[in-house]
């Protein structure tokens, strides 16, 4: 049943430009709270503390070619743990934003990780692109930010 509570989103990306575009897209949005992690360690710390509704994840970060995989595995582990203990755990939906080469590794483990969304990161990363992604995962329409 639809609820009116705010959506808690986490962006995991080491690219400052991407973080800036996301911040602009989410600025002034009453339905959302955006948190940003620029390193894998930071992301793991945040995931351990808070239950995010959506995680936008870049697979390729400074820590390694597939550093995002650690974050993905940790989210899956927390989900399974919550299911086993019947404790209300995170119902996190992961959106992987990367070049298509990086998807191959995830596909091998996709069965264990639940539903994961993929989107190619375009070269002209814009506020409209972010808004389009958010709209496509069924979250409330974000009006143009002026």
């Amino acid at each position: 049943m639809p609820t009116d509570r705010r959506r808690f989103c986490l962006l995991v990306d080491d690219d400052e430009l991407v973080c800036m575009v996301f911040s602009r897209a989410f600025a002034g949005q009453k339905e959302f709270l955006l948190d940003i992690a620029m390193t894998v360690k930071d992301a793991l710390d945040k995931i351990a503390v808070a239950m995010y509704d959506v995680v936008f994840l870049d697979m390729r970060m400074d820590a390694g070619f597939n550093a995002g995989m650690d974050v993905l595995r940790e989210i899956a582990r927390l989900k399974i743990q919550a299911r086993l203990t019947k404790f209300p755990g995170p119902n996190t939906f992961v959106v992987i934003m990367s070049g298509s080469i990086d998807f191959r590794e995830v596909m091998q483990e996709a069965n264990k990780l639940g539903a994961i969304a993929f989107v190619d990161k375009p070269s002209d990363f814009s506020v409209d692109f972010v808004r389009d992604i958010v709209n496509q995962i069924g979250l409330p329409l974000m009006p143009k930010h002026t």
Partner: protein
Amino acid sequence: MRNPFKAWWRWVFERAAFYHPVRAEVLIVEDVDSEAELLSTLLRNQRAVTTRVRNVAGALEVLNGPNRFQVAFVDLGLPDGSGSEVVRLIRDRRRGTHVVLVSGDPEKVMLALGHGLVTVMMKPYAVNTVREVLTMMRLPHSD
């Protein structure tokens, strides 16, 4: 000890979800009857209304109609073409519809990822995965 007040609220919320007037409209594009039946049953258990088509032509016909689908589950191997054609059609005609690709072959999925945001459900999938998609879309479901 079981809390009777909590149980009563749970009962009330379950009934409220059952009688909720809004139902999720879901399109299933799948040629194998048994798999379509399984997915349809899972979705109906989550209070969704399903429309099933068997091929690309059927999907085109339905997408030209008045239905507004919130989610489309698309199988990649269809008899008259690829599921990625259906994804392209959905992107052209129903921008707000969330696409879920269902496949057992990671390589086929890789080829179909060029059409914007797509969720991937690898076979064999869990019931929870279907529920996760509906939860994320804020659609009425049985939880």
